[in-house]
């Protein structure tokens, strides 16, 4: 077809695929290094495959254990889909190092809105000696009863590491769990905390 005055056909708009993580960082590889505390060394060894598989397979992040430095090193690959994967994996590994189970920590990989909140008992109340021990005992309860009840009621996971307390869950649930734990530290009896938890969960169940 001859058409005078017709502009030459415009080139089609190029379609670019989204940048890969690798390309985004200008081809550079990104690292994360998570140190392994000694008491998590053996559990890491036992649960290594469970950690490795989702990280390598699904997140497409290279993971290795630096035995000498006692660190878990994470590295992006060329085909890492998202730049946030690396951070997610790092968080996942870090959560495991805090003391969470792999099953629970894996939720970090799968959901964006989960966070880990840490605080110490001394942040809430200065306790010394026996009082601290008793507070810790109150937190966990007999056989971990109180802790489990809080976990089940608020859909969080709690790690009591002597002085430190780590809570894994969504933002709102973390808050509820933290309130319950703080009240326990301050001296509330477990029964009271339980009743409050129930009320809170019932209320939150009504909302959704």
């Amino acid at each position, binding site marked *: 077809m001859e058409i005078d005055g017709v502009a030459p056909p415009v080139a089609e708009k190029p379609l670019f695929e989204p940048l890969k993580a690798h390309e985004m960082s200008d081809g550079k590889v990104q690292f994360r290094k998570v140190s392994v505390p000694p008491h998590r060394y053996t559990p890491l060894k036992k649960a290594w495959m469970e950690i490795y598989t989702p990280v390598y397979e699904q997140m497409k992040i290279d993971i290795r254990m630096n035995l000498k430095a006692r660190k878990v090193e994470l590295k992006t690959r060329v085909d890492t889909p998202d730049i946030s994967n690396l951070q997610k994996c790092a968080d996942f590994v870090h959560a495991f190092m805090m003391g969470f*189970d792999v*099953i*629970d920590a*894996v*939720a970090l990989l*799968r*959901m964006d809105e*989960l966070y880990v909140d840490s605080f110490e008992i001394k942040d809430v109340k200065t306790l010394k000696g026996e009082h601290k021990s008793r507070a810790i005992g109150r937190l966990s*309860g*007999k056989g*971990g*009863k*109180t802790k*489990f*009840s809080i*976990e*089940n*009621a608020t*859909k*969080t*996971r709690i790690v009591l590491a002597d002085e430190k307390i780590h809570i*894994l*869950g*969504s933002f709102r649930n973390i808050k509820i769990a933290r309130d319950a734990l703080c009240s326990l530290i301050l001296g509330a009896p*477990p029964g009271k905390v*339980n009743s409050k*938890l*129930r*009320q809170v*969960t*019932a*209320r939150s*169940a*009504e909302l*959704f």
Partner: protein
Amino acid sequence: MGRPSEAAGMEALHQLKSTEPPQWLAPSASLSESARAASQHLFASLRPHVRKSPFDELLVDNFDAEQIWQQIDLLTQPLVRSIRRRVKHWEKNPAEIENLLPEVADGGKKVAQGKKMEEIDDDDDDDGGDMDMDDDDDDDDEEMDVDNDGEQDGGKDEGDESEEEEEEKSGGIEDKFLKIKELQEHLEDEEARHYGLDAKNKKSKKKSGSKKLEDEDDDSEEGEEDKEEDDDEDEEVDLFAGGDDEDEEDEMGNARYEDFFGKKKGGSEPKPRFKDELGEDSSSGEEEKEEELSSDDDDDEEEDDDENVNKKPKVLSTHEKEVQKIKSEIEKMEKANLDPKTWTMQGEVTAANRPKNSALEVDLDFEHNVRPVPVITEEVTQSLEEIIKKRIIEGQFDDIKRAPGLPSKAPRELKPVDENKSNKGLAEVYEEEFVQQTDPAAAPLSFSDEQKKEIIEDMSIQSNVPALAMEEIAPVAVSDAAMLAPEEVFSGKGNVKAEVELTQTERKRRRAKKKRKFKAVETKKMASKKAREDELRKQKEGTLLVVQVTHLCCQINVMLNQKL
């Protein structure tokens, strides 16, 4: 102290007169003696004229000059006052002097002398403090005394005249000072004077005047009609030998009530006394005469004024009466207002603030907060019973019904919170939640068979730990209900009896049983033992045989070897 004769006194006087002034500069005994004698003489001569002096004669012997002077002063002060007044009066009315003089010349001295005292007393008492003695020397006093004597003589005559005039003035007035008759006579005298009548007429009037003077004095307190009094006052002022109005005004300052009215009799007598009472007053007046005579004519004026005031209440016009009534009422009301209120008009009154039993007398009105007790009559009871019967028949009793409970929200379903560790991972939990939110159909049921199974499969290990041990560890929330039940612990069966409860046969049975058991066990043991021993023996024997056999063999060998 002998009083020196008059002659000696006169001699002394003359002597003093004759001494020359320079001789006075130096003190000499003779001069002082003569001076004392002269002053004594003069004192004595003056004494009769003064009514109120405390000294009858001048005490001179061994007395100080100051003391002598004081005595003289006491005597002469009033005298001088009266004389001064007289002189002033005469200054104003020089005509009187001329009138006096001929009287003196006629020898009316007797009468004059008789009235000297009265006159002088009248004058002296009324004088005010204006006539002050300024002389400090005895000599001066003597001279003054001499002069006074001269003056007094003239004054006395004047006084006599005026006294007579007073007496002649209006009579018939209740007042001491004023009487209508005397007034009339006085008026006539005045007219006679002005028209130049003879002194004889005056003389004759003097006597009559003297009598009436007493009456005047007596009735000074009583009042009379205004007009007469006014006229009298005016004329009395002119004639009364008291002096001018000016003097009167000056002198009034020292006047006292007693001068006018005498000593109070426990109440004034404002009521008008009529002529009937004149007699009484005149008799009593004689006593007061001497007192009253000393009072001046000016006092009469004031008494007249008082009379006027006392007279008014007697006759009032109707208007004045009404005004008085209203006034008294007003006074009453004002007084009531000023006084503290009666207790009934006050606000809150306690028993202490009111007189005893006063509340009983007053009609009190207060609210009764209590319903009055109902009077029960037959009709009332009948009506009540009718109501009761009716209600029973109807069956309508006023029972209290339970109030309906308040509408409240349905109680929240409280999920029992699982106290065990959840088997699901956190991811699965959130996954389920998400699925439930998005697609309820695809979500598994909350309480499925699997979960039931799971629950059933969960079995907790219960150890039969004594409760004390458990309590030591966790005293709070542990109960030994989870522990094994007694029947689980006990392994026996049947009716268990304690040893005490057993009967004889049972005991025997038990013993037999035990024995049997024991025996059985023993036989077993023995059998096993035997078996073992037999074996051992056999072994032993075997070994022995073997040993013997081997020994024999050795011996044989040895023997063979030897033989060989």
